[in-house]
C-alpha cells in the first residue's frame, strides 16, 4: 500500500512539476527562518550534504552501472583541496570550491582509467583501494595535509562581505549546491549524454555496437560524479572548520553507498530520500545509546527486505510496462489476429 502511495505521489508530482518545484524551493528557502534552531539546522545541513554526496555517487553507480564503493576518497580530495587552498594559500572559498571540484574530477578521471577494463566487483575493489590509498596518503603526507593532525582553522566562506558560518546560514550553501546539482544533473540525464550512460549500464556491448564510446562515456561519468563529490567536500571543510583523514574512512564510503541504495539507485530523488532517512534514523535513535547502531543496522536490512529497489525506486518495473501501452497492445494483437 505504501508502495502505491509512492506511485501516487510521483504521479501528482509529474502533473504539477513546475508549481511544486517552485513551492518547494520557496519553502526550503524560508526553513531556517521557521526553525532557527542550530541543532535542527545542523541536521538539515548534514542531510543536504549527504544528499548531494549520495547523489553524486548515484551518477556513477546508478546511471552508468559502474560500481564505486570508495566514494569517500573523492569526498576527501574535495575537502582537502579546499582546506589547503584556503589555509595554506589564503584563497577565498568560492574559487577554491570550483578548483576542488575540478581537481576531484581529474582524480576521478585517473581512477576511471584502470577501471575501464574492469567490471562489477573487480571495479568495486579498485575504487575501494583508491579510497584507502587516498586516505593513507592524506594521513602520511604531513607537509601538505597536516598528516594525522589534519587541517584546522579552515575559514568560513564570505559572500558580499557576510561571513557564512553556523548551520542556519550555511544551510543556504548546502541547499544551493544541492539544487544546482539536481537541476544540472537532471538536464544531463535527459540528454544524449545521460542516455549513453544508461545504455552502458544496461548492456555495454550493445551500446558499443550503436557507436556509444563506452570508455569515454564511462570516464566522463566518473568525472562528473567525482566533480560533485569534490564540490560537496569543499563545502564540507569550512563548515566543520577542521578536517582529518579519519573522517573519510571506508565506513563513510559504505554509508554513502547505503544511502543511495536505500533511497533508490538510478533515480534522481532516491539519494536525497536515502540520505534523509539514514541521517534521521541515526539521530532519532540516539537515546538507544549503545544499541543505536544495532537499530540502525537492523533498519537498513529491514528496508532492503521491504523495498529492495529503494524507497523511491521504480515499483515492479522489471515485470510490467505501464498500463496504458498494455491496453493498446491488446487491441493491436486482436487486430492482427483478425486481419489474418
Amino acid at each position: 500500500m505504501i508502495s502505491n502511495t509512492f506511485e501516487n505521489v510521483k504521479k501528482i508530482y509529474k502533473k504539477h512539476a513546475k508549481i511544486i518545484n517552485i513551492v518547494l524551493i520557496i519553502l526550503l528557502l524560508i526553513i531556517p527562518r521557521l526553525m532557527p534552531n542550530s541543532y535542527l539546522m545542523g541536521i538539515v545541513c548534514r542531510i543536504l550534504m549527504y544528499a548531494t554526496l549520495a547523489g553524486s555517487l548515484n551518477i556513477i553507480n546508478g546511471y552508468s552501472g559502474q560500481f564505486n564503493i570508495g566514494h569517500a576518497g573523492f569526498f576527501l580530495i574535495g575537502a582537502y583541496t579546499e582546506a589547503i587552498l584556503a589555509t595554506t594559500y589564503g584563497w577565498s572559498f568560492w574559487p577554491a570550491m570550483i578548483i576542488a571540484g575540478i581537481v576531484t574530477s581529474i582524480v576521478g578521471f585517473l581512477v576511471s582509467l584502470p577501471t575501464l577494463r574492469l567490471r562489477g566487483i573487480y571495479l568495486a575493489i579498485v575504487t575501494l583501494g583508491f579510497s584507502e590509498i587516498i586516505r593513507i596518503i592524506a594521513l602520511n603526507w604531513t607537509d601538505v595535509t597536516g598528516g594525522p593532525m589534519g587541517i584546522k582553522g579552515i575559514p568560513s566562506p564570505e559572500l558580499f562581505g557576510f561571513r557564512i558560518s553556523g548551520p542556519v546560514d550555511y544551510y543556504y550553501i548546502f541547499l544551493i549546491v544541492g539544487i544546482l546539482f539536481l537541476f544540472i544533473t537532471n538536464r544531463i540525464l535527459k540528454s544524449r549524454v545521460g542516455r549513453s550512460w544508461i545504455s552502458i549500464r544496461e548492456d555495454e556491448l550493445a551500446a558499443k555496437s550503436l557507436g556509444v564510446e563506452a570508455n569515454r562515456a564511462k570516464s566522463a561519468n566518473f568525472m562528473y560524479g567525482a566533480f560533485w563529490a569534490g564540490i560537496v567536500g569543499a563545502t564540507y571543510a569550512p563548515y566543520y572548520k577542521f578536517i582529518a583523514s579519519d573522517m573519510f574512512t571506508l565506513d563513510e564510503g559504505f554509508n554513502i553507498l547505503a544511502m543511495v541504495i536505500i533511497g533508490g539507485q538510478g533515480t534522481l530523488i532516491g539519494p536525497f530520500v536515502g540520505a534523509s532517512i539514514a541521517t534521521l534514523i541515526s539521530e532519532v535513535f540516539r537515546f538507544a545509546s549503545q544499541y543505536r547502531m544495532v537499530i540502525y543496522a537492523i533498519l537498513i536490512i529491514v528496508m532492503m527486505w521491504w523495498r529492495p529497489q529503494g524507497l523511491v525506486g521504480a515499483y515492479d518495473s522489471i515485470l510490467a510496462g505501464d498500463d496504458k501501452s498494455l491496453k493498446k497492445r491488446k487491441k493491436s494483437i486482436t487486430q492482427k489476429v483478425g486481419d489474418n
Partner: protein
Amino acid sequence: MDYYLMQLVNGLSQGAIYALMAIGYATIVGVVGMVTFTHGEVIMIGAYAAFYAFSFFAENLFLGIITSFAASWLLGIVIYKVCYERFFDSPRHIPLICTIGFSMLIKNLAQIVFGPNMKAMPQPIDLGFINVLGVRINTIQILIIVIVISLSTILYIVNSKTRWGIQLRAVSQDKKASALMGINVQRTTMIGNCIGCGLGGVAGMLLAIYYQSILPTMGGVLGLKSFISSVLGGLTNIPAAALGGILIGVTENLGTAFLSNSYRDVFAFVFLVLVLIIKPEGISKKVGGRP
C-alpha cells in the same frame, strides 16, 4: 640480503593467514555468486566462540576448531537467510548492502555482548619454533600453512572433480537453470555459504591464537584482506584465492621492507590494481560468455 629473505618468509607466513581467510571467502562467493562484507565478522565470531570454549571448558585445539566452525556455520545460516535468500533475482548491490548492514549489526552486538575491549586469547598449544632462513616460525604458523595447503587441495578437488562441486558452481552461475536441473538451489547455496563461513570461523580462531588476542572490531581489516586476496585470485577459484592471499602478504611485507610501513595497505592495493589491469579478472583462468 638475509634481511630481505627474512622479510620474504615473514610475508609468506603472513600471506598464509590471508590465504586461510580467503579460502573461506572464495568458497562463499563461489556458491552464492555474490560478494560479502560480513566475512570479517564471521571470522571474529569464530574467534570468540573458541575463546569461550577455551575459557569455560578446556584449552584444547580440537575443541576450539569444532566450536568455532559450528558457531560460524550457524551464523552462516543467519547470513544466508537475511542477506541472500530473498535476493537471488535482485541486482547484486542489494545483497551487498544487506551484508554491510549485517556486518554492522554483528560488530555492534559483539561489542555489547562480549564487551568492547581487547581480550587475551588462551593458548591451547605450546608454541614450538623452527628456524627458516633466520626467521622463527612457530607451531601456529606451520599449522596455518598446512591447513591452507590441504584445504586448497581438498576444496579444489571437490570443486572441480566431484558432482557436488559441479552443483556448487552451477548454482553460482545461474540459479534458475540450476533449479531446472533438479538442484535444490536454496539448500545448496546455504550449505556452501555455511562451509565458507565455518572455514572463516576456524581461520578466526587460529588468527586469535596467533596474535594472542581478540577484539570485537578485529573483523574489519581481516574481512577486507580476505576480500582483496580472493579478488586477486579471481574471486571463486580457491587455490588461486589462497595464492592471492600469499601474494598480498608478500607484497605488504616487502613493501614495508623496502619502503615504509606507513604505506602498507597502499602496497597491497597498488599491487592488486596492477594485476587487475593486466588480468581484469584476477590471476585464475576464466571461462565466460561471448557475444
